[in-house]
């Protein structure tokens, strides 16, 4: 346990030092957040108050949808970038020879990636509420429940991207899928009920759809845990299935890469 905490501390310290030594990184991220929020704010004003998807104002609907969706994409991106950089520099091979098991290393690294992306999500939501006056009636327990269950799914997606990168050097394919297909299927900018029936059914098979829906109901409408229990159940189900699958896939791809000598291929 002490050793695991020590490893986590080392990984967090590495990522924090790397982040703060990219001097302009924080400022660029902050400017990006405000630009995006401003664009959505004015878009919702242009559309007018008559458009109330799922019975809520359009700006908070967008705020939660894009915030959660970006969190998923950025988490997958963080895993992928970490593996790609480690392959390019040769760090991946060296990391695989340390006393830390690969699965432990991935999970500890993910905590660091989550911490950064959670902070981004928090800044995004707080800025949306405080600066752009998005009306919210947050139920913090419900928000926390959705967030925790969403973390498991984001972790699975990140590990899947890392697996594709190690196995086929094509982790970006999953990011492409997240950035195109899943973007409009997950109800990020409009309710999935607006989609044609076959696509709406497909949208119900996308875990991000439930994370966004759950967070909207918890943050904007202030619904209780009991009220959003079915959504939480589906999120938990996705997590229970996807996470072990992703871990098994990563373990298999690392073993195959060690057999084929392709650990550092990119």
């Amino acid at each position, binding site marked *: 346990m002490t050793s695991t905490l020590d490893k986590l501390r080392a990984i967090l310290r590495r990522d924090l030092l790397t982040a703060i030594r990219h001097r302009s990184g924080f400022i660029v991220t902050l400017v990006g957040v405000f630009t995006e929020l401003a664009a959505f704010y004015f878009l919702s004003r242009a559309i007018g108050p008559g458009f109330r998807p799922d019975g809520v104002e359009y700006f908070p609907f967008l705020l939660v949808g894009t915030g959660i969706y970006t969190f998923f994409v950025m988490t997958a991106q963080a895993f992928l970038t970490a593996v790609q950089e480690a392959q390019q*520099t*040769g760090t991946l091979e060296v990391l695989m020879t340390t*006393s*830390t098991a690969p699965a432990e290393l991935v999970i500890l690294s993910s905590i660091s990636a989550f911490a950064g992306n959670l902070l981004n999500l928090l800044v995004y939501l707080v800025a949306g509420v405080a600066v752009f006056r998005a009306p919210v009636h947050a139920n913090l327990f419900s928000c926390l429940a959705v967030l925790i269950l969403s973390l498991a799914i984001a972790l699975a997606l990140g590990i899947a991207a890392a697996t594709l990168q190690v196995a086929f050097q094509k982790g970006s394919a999953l990011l492409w899928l997240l950035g195109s297909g899943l973007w409009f299927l997950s109800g990020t900018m409009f309710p999935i009920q607006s989609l044609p029936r076959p696509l709406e059914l497909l949208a119900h098979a996308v875990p991000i759809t439930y994370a966004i829906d759950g967070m909207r109901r918890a943050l904007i409408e202030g619904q209780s845990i009991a009220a959003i229990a079915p959504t939480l159940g589906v999120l938990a189900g996705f997590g229970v299935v996807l996470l072990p699958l992703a871990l098994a896939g990563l373990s298999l791809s690392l073993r195959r890469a*060690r*057999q084929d*000598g392709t650990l550092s291929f990119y």
Partner: protein
Amino acid sequence: MDRIVFESVGKIFRHRPALFNWLGRERRGETTALKDVSFSAASGEVLVLLGPNGSGKTTALKLISTMLLPDAGMVRVGGFDARRNAGDVRRQVGIAIATERSFFPRLSAGENLDFFAALDEVPRRERAERIKEVLRDTGLEEQADTLVMKFSSGMYQRLGIARALVKRPSVLLLDEPTRSLDAASTAHFWATIRGLARQETTVLLATHNFAEAAAVADRLLLLHRGELLADRSLNDGENADALRSFYFGLTGEIDEASRSRVCNE
């Protein structure tokens, strides 16, 4: 007891061209990196893998470190099978490979070593002292707080060695360790290696440089195109001379007589 055992080990790299290979000319087929290679190394022994480029030296080191898995045979370190007990093997092995930039560029030398030492489960209270010690041994003491993105090739190489040493491994694997070092650093490095061997560390070093091999080895393994051609102790001067002639013969510089003499022994 032997610390490292290589038993009839074979390793083949298969080349699988991408789809639409008719658009380009990517090679298909396979390369035999190691063919039925067997050897062992005892505690405190300095064993040198000598061979020209492509002879399988680095592959052998990567197999011992569990970076690669064998296709045939068995690799054991400290009694543990590298395939089945990879974790136990990794706890004993430190490796410095030839990849120069396998560090986090925006961390200093000391911070990089601290990171890898944590993953290698070096106790936190001992870490600062050990890092100081290995930085001193590799001549990087003054660069402890320099970001490694500012390092030269030689400094990267020394830092790679420092990283391998910081966990105080019982098996130390070194791939072309003095490739970018100057003469003074090289001499200091050999002294460090001999000191480690006296403390019962098993050192396995890969090089294509015969002079380097002769300077530090207790025993020398000659590899060529994945085959082990000779396994000789260098304590006997006659052995060293014959091996030297044979090795230069392999690299195209000497007669066939030496080759047959060594192979027939």
